């Protein structure tokens, strides 16, 4: 009934990593590449099998055979539903893509890089599959340990060290907050399995203890997801990590934080929070809106392309948090589709940036002015990516965004559509502006902000030599990712299948039944949503808006001078303040973290308990 291979997607990369380390003195670069790629490919096959099985019927796999007796369990389960399994598959695909990309990208330190990437992948897969709250945190910490080291990979540089330190400290504190959350829930329910905790809380209802536990767990995962105001680490870390690692950070790691919030809500807190759904929805949507707008604003400000992409990820995370916060199955389906499209596109964009870094040793937009003309193919990729981010119909990001917009409208949050459009316009426009400046030589070649230019240059030995020759793999992989972005939502039945999966994911009562009792649950068929004319209109508008905004970014300097000082000066001052807040000082970040946590806690205690 339950596939025997269920544990293997986590175990295979563990074994592969250990073997790589044992054989490190003997192995050659190509052996490391081949072994790690083979390991990840196995994981992909296994995840695909599990996805297929769980789509037919979700199931729990009990480690060591410690099955629950009368709904009480002491064992650890992997609880597989199609959304979790799909996310595991998606993580594995991105790991494969970045390993393939890095095979010709840089001189990886003999095997250590590969082993860490495998462990990172294993952690993401385990995180998506596990049904045990504490196990979830173990995988969170494993993901962290591998990610901190990978961020600081380029030890010859300043920025990666600082980025890794801020990343590690912020995420560790988030982890401790989650430990306290788990402790509170364990004290209340005597359980660590998420389904069992949810079942126990259904009987108790919400009280301050449950609310505080929820706040601590949510803030922990929102820190991973980089929600405002606990997002500060992200730009530091994503701007400096090696490109193949950035692909995983932006493409799937931070999205896993959002996934965990959704999972915890629907499995654990949906029962006690049911009477307060409207308030919780308002709180989460507010967090999402602030995150999306700040990300969009900061994204368009950047000239350091990797930092620009990092802030565009924050904008998208804001959109995802809004989607989760709507607390409906359809919005969740929208987020799932959007995550896949965004992850693939963002991965391709980071890889494209990697080509620029490889060839010109800088990712500063102004320094690269017009220099991209020698590699027009890369420019085409960048432009396509920009249009995708602007939600060009009828591709994957558009499909996800339409679902989100429909469910926002039907939840009475129609104004959210404006936020979604702003996020699409700003992130798309920023990429199109870079394309215009770097590959077409549009706009001026100089601008204030020499500090950022210096930071964008590299002196390290990250790359292999021969920069005038771009290895074909570095173009092939992003092309494949963009092809997937185009294709996924166009596969007949793909989006309805995600809607089906989201409906199962959000069925709080059924989850406890299929996990703890192993019962088959019969869900009613979900009527697939249809794309309305309004959706196409919004997206056409956002693509157009992105093009116009990009043009403004390139040619708008004369226009900007005409803005009256009464508006222009305070606006610039506000932008400056905002930029200064992203100071890189870990003390600042933790002070903001504390402020965000206590604010969220206070609001939740006042409205939800």
């Amino acid at each position, binding site marked *: 009934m339950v596939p*025997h291979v*269920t544990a293997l997607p986590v175990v295979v990369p563990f074994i592969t990593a250990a073997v790589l380390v044992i054989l490190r*003195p003997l192995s050659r670069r190509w052996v490391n590449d081949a072994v790690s790629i083979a390991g990840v490919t196995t994981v992909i096959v296994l995840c695909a099998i599990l996805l297929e099985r769980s789509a037919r019927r979700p199931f729990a796999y009990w480690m*060591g*055979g410690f099955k629950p007796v009368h709904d009480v369990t002491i064992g650890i389960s992997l609880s597989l539903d199609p959304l979790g399994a799909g996310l595991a598959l998606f993580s594995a695909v991105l790991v494969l893509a970045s390993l393939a990309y890095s095979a010709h990208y840089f001189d990886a330190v003999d095997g250590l890089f590969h082993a860490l990437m495998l462990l990172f992948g294993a952690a993401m897969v385990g995180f998506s599959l596990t049904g045990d709250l504490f196990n979830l945190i173990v995988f969170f910490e494993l993901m962290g340990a591998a990610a901190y080291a990978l961020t600081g990979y380029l030890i010859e540089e300043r920025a990666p060290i600082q980025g890794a330190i801020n990343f590690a400290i912020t995420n560790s504190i988030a982890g401790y907050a989650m430990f306290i959350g788990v402790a509170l829930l364990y004290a209340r329910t005597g359980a660590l399995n998420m389904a069992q905790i949810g079942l126990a809380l259904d009987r108790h209802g919400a009280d301050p203890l449950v*609310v505080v536990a929820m706040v601590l767990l949510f803030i922990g995962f929102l820190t991973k997801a980089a929600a405002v105001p606990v997002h500060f680490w992200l730009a530091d870390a994503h701007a400096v990590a090696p490109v193949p690692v950035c692909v995983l950070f932006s493409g799937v790691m931070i999205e896993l934080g959002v996934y965990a919030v959704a999972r915890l809500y629907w499995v654990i807190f949906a029962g006690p929070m049911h009477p307060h759904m409207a308030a919780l929805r308002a709180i989460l949507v507010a967090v999402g809106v602030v995150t999306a707008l700040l990300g969009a604003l900061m994204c368009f400000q950047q000239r350091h392309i990797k930092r620009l992409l990092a802030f565009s990820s924050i904008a998208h995370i804001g959109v995802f948090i809004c989607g989760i916060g709507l607390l409906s199955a359809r919005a969740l389906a929208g987020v799932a589709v959007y995550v896949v499209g965004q992850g693939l596109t963002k991965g391709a964009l980071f890889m494209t940036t990697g080509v620029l870094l490889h060839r010109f040793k800088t990712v500063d937009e102004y320094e690269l002015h017009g220099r991209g003309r020698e590699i027009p193919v890369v420019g085409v990729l960048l432009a396509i990516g920009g249009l995708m981010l602007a939600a060009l119909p009828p591709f994957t990001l558009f499909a996800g965004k339409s679902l989100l917009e429909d469910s926002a409208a039907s939840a009475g949050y129609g104004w959210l559509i404006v936020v979604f459009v702003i996020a699409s316009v700003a992130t798309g426009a920023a990429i199109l502006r870079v394309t215009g400046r770097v590959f077409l030589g549009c706009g001026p070649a100089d601008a204030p902000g020499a500090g950022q230019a210096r930071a964008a240059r590299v002196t390290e030995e990250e790359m292999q030599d021969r920069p005038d020759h771009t290895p074909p793999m570095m173009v092939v992989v992003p092309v494949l990712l963009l092809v997937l972005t185009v294709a996924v939502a166009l596969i007949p039945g793909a989006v309805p299948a995600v809607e089906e999966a989201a409906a199962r994911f959000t069925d709080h009562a059924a989850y406890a039944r299929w996990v703890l009792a192993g019962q088959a649950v019969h869900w009613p068929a979900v009527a697939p949503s249809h794309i309305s004319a309004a959706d196409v209109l919004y997206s056409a508008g956002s693509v157009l808006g992105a093009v116009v905004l990009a043009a403004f970014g390139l040619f708008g300097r004369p226009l900007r001078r005409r803005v009256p000082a009464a508006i222009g000066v305070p606006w610039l001052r506000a932008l400056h303040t905002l930029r200064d807040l992203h100071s890189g000082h870990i003390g600042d970040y933790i*002070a903001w973290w504390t402020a965000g946590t*206590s604010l969220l806690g206070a609001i939740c205690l006042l409205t939800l308990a």
Partner: protein
Amino acid sequence: MSRRARLTLFAIAGPGLAAVLIIGFRGLPAFGDYHDVYGLVVNGVELSMRHATDYVTALNFDVRAFDTLGEEYILFASVLGVTLLLRVMRGEDEEYRAAEHGMSGSSDAVRLAALLLIPSLIALGVYLVIHGALTPGGGFQGGIVLAAAPAAILIAGRYLELKVLCPTRAIEAAEGIGALGYCLLGLGGLIFASVYFKNFLPAGNPGQLLSAGFMPLNSIAVGLEVMGAFLIVWTAFLDQALLVRRRTGEAT
């Protein structure tokens, strides 16, 4: 933000966070009033099924063995990370003279003490590792004690002899074999008992060394890994502190 602004923000937010925590903690049962099922179920299961007597180790290596797997690989990943981050860079040399210079000054009596310390640490470590399922201790604690045994050479001021005694590559291989072994023991469960991490060895008599099914083997695998892990981390840091120097007359 200025230092002052930062501290002011925290002065407001910190007490707020403390208040949120306290409000949450007030819902906890009074200290000492624990009466939940999980622990009691475990206590029953482990003694009756596995004949393990230390329930903490039993949970670690049996019921929640999968958590321990994750935990072992957290350690493994951070050892890889430390190795990666503390690698010798361009413009740096390992100066072997510096080490002896920096560590000299130990008297003969201290050296003798260190020499005597080593076998007792090894004995203690081995005891902790293999008796994990019976008495307090287990692979993790025993592993660190075992790692401390060669590190005791430091007290004698002979860092380079530690490096000769424990060549990095060999230690790294030992660590990898420990981590791999733990994975494979889980796989043994899948092969012989058709579930990952299911015990596939006889339970034995409670209190005896070879009881508690595969737990002693798990403990040994973890012990090997932890020993290797700590030795690698320690030597990586000590290398930096004692050996690695910037090449003189050269910018970074």
